[in-house]
C-alpha cells in the first residue's frame, strides 16, 4: 500500500516538565477529507496520547478547537489537510493567549470581557422603576428589527479574532473584537434599553478607540460575524454620544 503522509509540527508545552514550548513533528496518513482536528485525534490515538487540545462539536458550532495553522487562526474542525498537503503543517496554540498546555490556551481574559459588556437584554423600566410585567405581554420584534443585529449574534466565542488582533496583542486591556461585537449585538436589539450603560464601556480608550481598524478579525472569523464592522459602527455611535454630551451634559 502506498499511503501518503503529511508532516505536522505541533508546538508543545507541558507545564510540569517544560520551561519553554518546543516543536514536535508527527507523520500522519494523509486523506483529503481529514480535518486538522481529526489529524490531532489520530495523533492522540496512535502516536502520542499525551498531547492536549480542545474540541467538542466537530462542526464549527462550539468554538472550542481554535488554533494557529501555519500562523493563521483557524478552527481545527473547519480546516482540512487537503488545503495544505503536500506541504507540512505547523500547529500552535491560539496567539495572544497564554498557553495552558500544548494547544490549550488560557481564555479567562476573553471570557471575562464577554461578561463585562452585559451580554443580556436589559429591559426598559417604567416610572416606578419596575420592568414590564409578564402579563403585559411579550417584547415584540419584527424580522427587520432582528436583521439589524442578527449577523453580530452569530459569534461562537472561539477567540480567533483575538488571536488575529495586533491591538489586543499589544494591549491586553483592549476589550477586543468579539466582546465589542456582542455589545453591539445587544445595543442594536430593539427590546434592549441598556445602551446608555454599555456606551460607558464603548467610549473608553480600551473600548472601541483601542481599535485601529486592522480588519484581520473579520478575515479570520469562521462565522462571518465581521467584528471590524461592529466596532466601526460603535465608533460612529461613540462619536455621536460625545457630541451630544457636549451640548447636553448628564
Amino acid at each position, binding site marked *: 500500500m502506498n499511503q501518503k503522509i503529511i508532516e505536522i509540527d505541533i508546538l508543545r*508545552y507541558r*507545564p*510540569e516538565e517544560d520551561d*519553554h*514550548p518546543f516543536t514536535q513533528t508527527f507523520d500522519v496518513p494523509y486523506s483529503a477529507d481529514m480535518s486538522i482536528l481529526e489529524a490531532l485525534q489520530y495523533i492522540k490515538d496512535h502516536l502520542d496520547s499525551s498531547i492536549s487540545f480542545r474540541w467538542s462539536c466537530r462542526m464549527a458550532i462550539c468554538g472550542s478547537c481554535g488554533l494557529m495553522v501555519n*500562523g*493563521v487562526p483557524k478552527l481545527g474542525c473547519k480546516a482540512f489537510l487537503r488545503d495544505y498537503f503536500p506541504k507540512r503543517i505547523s500547529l500552535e496554540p491560539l*496567539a495572544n493567549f*497564554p*498557553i*495552558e498546555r500544548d494547544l490549550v490556551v*488560557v481564555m479567562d481574559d476573553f471570557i471575562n470581557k464577554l461578561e463585562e459588556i452585559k451580554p443580556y437584554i436589559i429591559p426598559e423600566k417604567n416610572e416606578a422603576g419596575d420592568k414590564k410585567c409578564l402579563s403585559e405581554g411579550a417584547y415584540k420584534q419584527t*424580522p*427587520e428589527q432582528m*436583521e*439589524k443585529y442578527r449577523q453580530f449574534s452569530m459569534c461562537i466565542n472561539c477567540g480567533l479574532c483575538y488571536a488575529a488582533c*495586533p491591538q489586543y*496583542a*499589544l494591549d491586553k486591556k483592549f476589550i477586543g473584537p468579539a466582546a465589542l461585537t456582542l455589545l453591539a449585538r445587544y445595543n442594536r436589539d430593539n427590546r434592549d434599553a441598556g445602551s446608555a450603560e454599555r456606551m460607558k464601556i464603548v467610549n473608553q480608550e480600551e473600548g472601541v478607540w483601542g481599535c*485601529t*481598524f*486592522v*480588519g*484581520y478579525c*473579520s*478575515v479570520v472569523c469562521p462565522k462571518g460575524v*465581521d467584528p*471590524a*464592522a461592529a466596532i*466601526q*459602527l460603535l*465608533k*460612529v455611535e461613540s462619536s455621536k454620544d460625545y457630541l451630544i454630551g457636549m451640548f447636553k451634559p448628564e
Partner: protein
Amino acid sequence: MSKRKPYTRELPTDWWMKQLFYTKYMLREGSSVLISIYSLILAWGVLRLSQGEVAFNGWLEALQNPFAILLHLIALVFALYHTITWFSLAPKAVDLWIKGKRLDDKVIISGHYAAFIVATVLCLLIITL
C-alpha cells in the same frame, strides 16, 4: 498542588512582517508619514507665498529638484494606496438600511469613488482655469 504554569509568548518586534495582511496594514498606516511631509511642504509654500514673489519662486524652484519630485511621486503612490484600501473598508462603517436591507457594499464603495472623481475634477478645474 496545582501544576498550572501558563506560558506567555512574547510578541516579536517584527510581528507585522510575518503576515502579509499585517504588512499591508502597516503600509496603510505608514502612508501617513509621507502624507504629513507632503502637507508640510505645501504649508511651507503658502508661507513663502505670503512673503512675496521672490520667496514663492524660490520655493517653486526647490520643488524642481529631482529629490523633491521623487518624494512627491512616492507620496502619491502611498496616498493612492491609502485611498484604495480605505474605500474598500468604508462599507464597514456605514449603517444605511433601505427597506429592511443593508445597503450593498458595492454601492457604498462606488459612491466613494464617484465622490473622489468629482472632487478631483473640481480641483483640477479650479487650478487650471
